[in-house]
């Protein structure tokens, strides 16, 4: 069955958009060919979720945002995430894809670190972007949404860390979304040999709520001996439908990638997070926490795919479902033939707070090699009435008791997150979402 699909943006729109941004020709061409592909490709098929009725294609493409670098013009909700101006060292703030503030410490600049918006990167660091953009981690013709993403990229960040450079302070990016804008945000991180870096991003909604789309792709490349910590707090409003695909190519020997993802959107969300452990002795650690509420439906799929010998992949996911929220938690540890001595471990836990809430945890081990170790654990359960009785018998209201149980349920993940600022932001978001 084929259904006619239309996009709110046509070839002419894309051509003039690309021209306004002074993009290189190869990128303008890539946009156009991707748009063509998007028409013919299917939506992604996240396991156990039906998303074909979701809105991924109806949105506004005008950012209605003036650029600039004026800190004082940033909104209060953005400021609350980034702190005082004087203390800001490394930051990119964008609203509807348009950069509104940018800072990178001189010391890092001098060491050759690049931390800039995608628009600037495409002109100033064209070769590097061309080498990595939607090649090995996420390919643009995977599905309709990745193709549409490549056609319409209108925001995002490029982070490049040269060989042997260790960046101590986290680099932060704040992406705010407003109105019915379709945000196509692309994050590209390249960590060269023996480098290390921590990147933290926030997605948030501002202003009035309208039907909108966020189509997010992140690609992380980790070379020999390099280490990347990637933290995210997704907090888009209930009217935003989100497709977010974060992938890591851990190609280097003994390279490591840590994901710390707070998946706190209020709208329908498909989140894929995949790490390819290609390098020998490479390591992936994925920790995610989620709270579902209202009527939202979400699918969180985490894949760790082992190619490298002695590679080690860890997945830990905890989710709380309130109201009539539905979430599917898929965890896949895949060990390819030849990845001897690989180890894959995963745990998914879901706590449901109401009769109407639904949660599903699916741990999957796919193993095509004999000489490996792997393990999984999963649980889905309702809040324990005896536990509630105990807490309430000390005078805590039902709400307060639930609040403690939720914090307690998520704490083993949150407290183990490798990035301090993500921990703190998550505590705040959890606190707000629990009530």
């Amino acid at each position, binding site marked *: 069955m084929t259904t006619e699909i239309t996009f709110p943006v046509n070839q002419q729109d894309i051509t003039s958009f690309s021209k306004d941004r002074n993009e290189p020709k190869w990128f303008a061409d890539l946009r156009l060919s991707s748009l063509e592909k998007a028409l013919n490709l299917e939506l992604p098929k996240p396991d156990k979720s039906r998303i074909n009725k979701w809105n991924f294609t109806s949105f506004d493409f005008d950012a209605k945002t003036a650029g600039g670098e004026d800190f004082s013009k940033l909104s209060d909700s953005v400021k609350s995430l980034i702190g005082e101006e004087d203390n800001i060292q490394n930051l990119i703030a964008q609203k509807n894809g348009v950069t509104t503030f940018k800072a990178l410490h001189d010391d890092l600049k001098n060491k050759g670190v690049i931390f800039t918006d995608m628009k600037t990167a495409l002109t100033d660091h064209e070769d590097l972007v061309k080498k990595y953009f939607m090649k090995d981690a996420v390919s643009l013709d995977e599905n309709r949404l990745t193709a549409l993403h490549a056609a319409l990229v209108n925001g995002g960040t490029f982070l490049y860390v040269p060989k042997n450079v260790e960046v101590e302070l986290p680099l932060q990016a704040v992406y705010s979304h407003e109105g019915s804008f379709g945000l196509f945000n692309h994050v590209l991180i390249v960590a060269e040999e023996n480098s290390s870096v921590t990147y933290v991003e926030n997605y948030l909604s501002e202003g009035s709520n309208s039907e909108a789309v966020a189509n997010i792709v992140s690609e992380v490349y980790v070379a020999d001996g390099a280490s990347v910590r990637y933290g995210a707090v997704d907090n888009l409003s209930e009217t935003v439908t989100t497709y977010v695909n974060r992938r890591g190519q851990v190609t280097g020997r003994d390279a490591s990638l840590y994901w710390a993802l707070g998946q706190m959107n209020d709208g329908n969300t498909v989140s894929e997070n995949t790490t390819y452990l290609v390098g020998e002795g490479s390591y992936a650690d994925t920790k995610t926490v989620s709270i579902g509420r209202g009527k939202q439906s979400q699918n969180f799929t985490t894949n760790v795919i082992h190619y490298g010998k002695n590679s080690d992949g860890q997945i830990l996911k905890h989710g709380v479902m309130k109201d009539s929220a539905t979430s599917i938690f898929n965890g896949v540890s895949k060990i390819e033939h030849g990845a001897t001595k690989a180890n894959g471990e995963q745990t998914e836990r879901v706590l449901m707070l109401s009769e109407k809430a639904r949660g599903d945890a699916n741990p999957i081990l796919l193993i095509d090699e004999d000489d490996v170790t792997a393990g999984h654990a999963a649980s889905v359960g309702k809040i324990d009435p005896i536990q509630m009785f*105990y807490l309430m018998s000390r005078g805590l209201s*039902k709400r307060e008791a639930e609040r403690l149980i939720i914090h*307690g349920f998520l*704490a083993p993940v949150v407290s183990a997150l490798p990035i301090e600022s993500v921990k703190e932001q998550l505590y705040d978001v959890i606190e707000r979402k629990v009530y």
Partner: protein
Amino acid sequence: MTKPNLTVKDLHVSIEDKEILKGFGIEVNGGEIHAIMGPNGTGKSTLASALMGHPKYEVTKGEATLGGEDLFDMEVDERARAGLFLAMQYPSEVSGVTNADFIRSAMNAGREEGDEVSLMKFIRQMDEKMGSLEIDESFQHRYLNEGFSGGEKKRNEILQLLMLQPQIAILDEIDSGLDIDALKVVAKGINELRSEDFGCMIITHYQRLLNYIKPDFVHVMMQGRIVKSGGPELAQKLEEQGYDWIKEELGIEDETVGQE
């Protein structure tokens, strides 16, 4: 402050349609310590759970008031805030919530916004009470009851009792699983609370605890109600002679109510 009072009249309680309590009555006032004794399976723990509002127990008949207010008209948390406390036989474990956070939340639950216990005052009180219960410093940072030994859980119940200072406390077999040293420490904690502003109902089937906490009244439960009451000497007699003489005296063949 009016003197604490818990009055229970003709209480009938069922669990899964099986009647366990069959006409239980008692009055506990501030300054009084009542011991509820009796063999296993006579309804003692059901009494404790039902008064606190355990979701599995259904009150089918009778009444209970706390300071004149209808207890069964209140939610569990309202009963606690009205001044009732139950030290449980099997306290729940709550992962991820530290003991200190929990106790502080509980202390603040009964207070108006803006009148919360200050952190300094809280820490001072915790230190003092933990000291008197000979509880290790690390206790407060551990998750609530998680991985606690039986004895640690019991001490934690008493720590909460001392911190929350309720009007009426029910201690449900707080002595079971405690060695003699722990028992003395727990008894010391409870004795500290003894005053006109505090009434207590101690449920136990050993007389042992009563060597350290002298009760004002001793009641014997059989078949879901009190069958005999007396003073401390009654506990002594039970220790020496067991329960059979009461059964004989009252013509009771089976003292149990099927399940506890």
